[in-house]
């Protein structure tokens, strides 16, 4: 188990403009408490805490930084204490 | 003379500490003090607050229905405590997080962008110390020197660098509080 780096100012690996057509992980921003457990649990390490955003509860929320590298394994969702994440499998055609 | 102050904000904003500093400063001036925190699970994920009453006489009610000052550091605190300020009282607003207006014209409002002032003073986490400085700067119901000594008493000899940071943040807030009097 590696230690996560919560509150890190990691940029999205892809510029915001060029969002991929498919998003395997949907974050319910308003629920996220920025605990970083999902970040720590993600095997390919494609989740970070978004230092540029604070939700109404005052937390930096989780962000998928590389949708392409996400395997939709749902490990992140299964550790999330606040049931923040929805996971989709990559469509065949995507 | 009795002066009551409510300080409120997120749990992590150092609310209770700022109140303790104020209370200790008053104690050092030989005055009567009462410091009352919010406590228990209500603080988790919610709003922390404390009340500090400073007086030259024995203090009666711990419940403040006519606050002389309120320091609000996040939006929920603004909503909750702006109405509690007595007419003619002072409301210190942390504009870094609060956009709303208090909607009252019978009180004095002091807007302080606490995070940036704190960052300017060297540590952007010391928002409530900045706000405390602004409050004391504007109303000077305790002496700033007492606050400086309070930091020393509360933080102890072990942590001189923290004392320095807090003092700097307080002083920056104090300046920000003085400002309009000069303008």
């Amino acid at each position: 188990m590696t230690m996560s780096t919560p509150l890190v100012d990691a940029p999205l690996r892809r510029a915001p403009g060029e969002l991929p057509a498919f998003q395997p992980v949907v974050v319910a921003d308003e629920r996220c408490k920025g605990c970083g457990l999902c970040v720590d649990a993600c095997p390919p390490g494609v989740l970070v805490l978004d230092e540029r955003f604070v939700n109404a509860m005052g937390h930096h929320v989780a962000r998928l930084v590389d949708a392409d590298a996400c395997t939709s394994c749902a490990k992140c969702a299964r550790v999330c204490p606040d049931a923040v994440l929805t996971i989709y499998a990559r469509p065949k055609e995507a | 003379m009795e002066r009551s102050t409510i300080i409120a904000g997120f749990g992590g904003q150092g609310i209770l500490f700022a109140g303790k500093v104020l209370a200790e400063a008053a104690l050092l001036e030989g005055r009567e003090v009462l410091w009352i925190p919010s406590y228990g699970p209500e603080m988790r994920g919610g709003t922390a607050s404390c009340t500090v009453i400073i007086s030259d006489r024995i203090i009666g009610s711990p419940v403040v229905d006519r606050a002389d000052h309120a320091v609000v550091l996040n939006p929920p605190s603004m909503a909750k405590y702006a109405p509690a300020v007595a007419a003619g009282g002072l409301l210190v607003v942390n504009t870094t997080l609060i956009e709303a207006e208090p909607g009252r014209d019978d009180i004095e409002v002091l807007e302080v962008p606490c995070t940036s002032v704190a960052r300017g003073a060297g540590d952007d986490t010391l928002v409530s110390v900045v706000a405390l400085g602004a409050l004391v700067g504007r109303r000077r119901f305790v002496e700033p020197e007492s606050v400086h000594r309070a930091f020393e008493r509360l933080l102890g000899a072990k942590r001189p660098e923290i004392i320095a940071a807090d003092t700097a943040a307080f002083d920056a807030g104090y300046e920000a509080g003085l400002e309009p009097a000069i303008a």
Partner: protein
Amino acid sequence: MAVLDRPADAGRSHAIASPPGTGGEATLGHVNPGLRTERLLMKGNEAIAEAAIAAGCDAYFGYPITPQAELLEWMARRMPEEGRVFVQAESELAAINMALGAGAAGARVLVSSSSPGISLMAETMSYMAGSRVPCVLINVMRGGPGLGSIGAAQGDYLQATKGHGHGDYHVPVLAPSSIGEAIELVSDAFVLAERYRTPVMILADGILGQAMEPVEPEFPKLPKPAADWTIEGADGREPRVVRSLHIQPADLEAHNNVLQATYRELVAREPRWAGELLDDAEVVVVGYGTAARVARTAVERAREEGIRAGLFRPVTLWPFPVGGLRAAAAGARAVLTVEMSAGQLVEDVRLALEGTVPVYLHGRTGGMVPSPDAVVEAIRRVCVGVPPLRGVEELR
């Protein structure tokens, strides 16, 4: 001779919160209210704990509960430092029974909890009263009934003064209204507990427990009187038994007569109260603890308006300062009790006054605290014979 030797029902001004004892078997430390140097800011819970340590508390037993947890935490550090007994029990029930054991063995014992935890101690409090085991129990009251809230409340007044455990017993109940007074009352509580061989309760509330106030760093110290009834091993003497069981009703009644005689002595000698602006008061406001502080501010504000209000603050809730209140209310047009409960103290006020003066209630519940202005409004109304607007209706 006695610490608490003074005319029954002697009062003190509010400014000096608690009458310091006047020597005798157990000398109380003196707190000089004029002295203003080197005071410390202390949290109520911690001050109570430290006061018990200064008073020679040998053993502390407790269980975490808000808003009392800091008291236990303070003891967790300080008692071992002093080489004394600290046990975090598995429950309040266990804690109070550990207290029974240690108390029977001669220890000066402190136990603390808050409302739900206090309820769990009812059976053993009755046992301790019956077995005449001294002990001081702090109740840092919170909102009830049930799990309620953790806000400061005074909903356990009747429990502390009348009910709680089964059987015919009473427990002296002391009610501080400042942290400085709490420090003194802790020491006085040990004196009462040992002199009368009884458990003693201190009724505080969440605000008193959580707040910080300046206190004198010198806390009262107490010598420990010798006891001829404690269990320690029957070495060269007949065995001693500490018990409440007297299976023959006639024996139990005889034992109860001893208890009742003790209670009569307490009633005759130990009622305490504090008063302010009572001499010419047309409205006497009665309250204890935190509510009394609100009442005090309200009395001042009422005076500013020209209403002659005064404050009567019982310091012993049991024995209730009946004589003091009767005298204070003798010339009044109305008596108003201010409570953080739905009307509990008011029963004792009515019992004391027996219809001689109209008695009204302003009570908030559940952790809500009356505001000074609301009390002023209540004073205005009762002064002209109108029941207070806000406040729980009387039940009878």
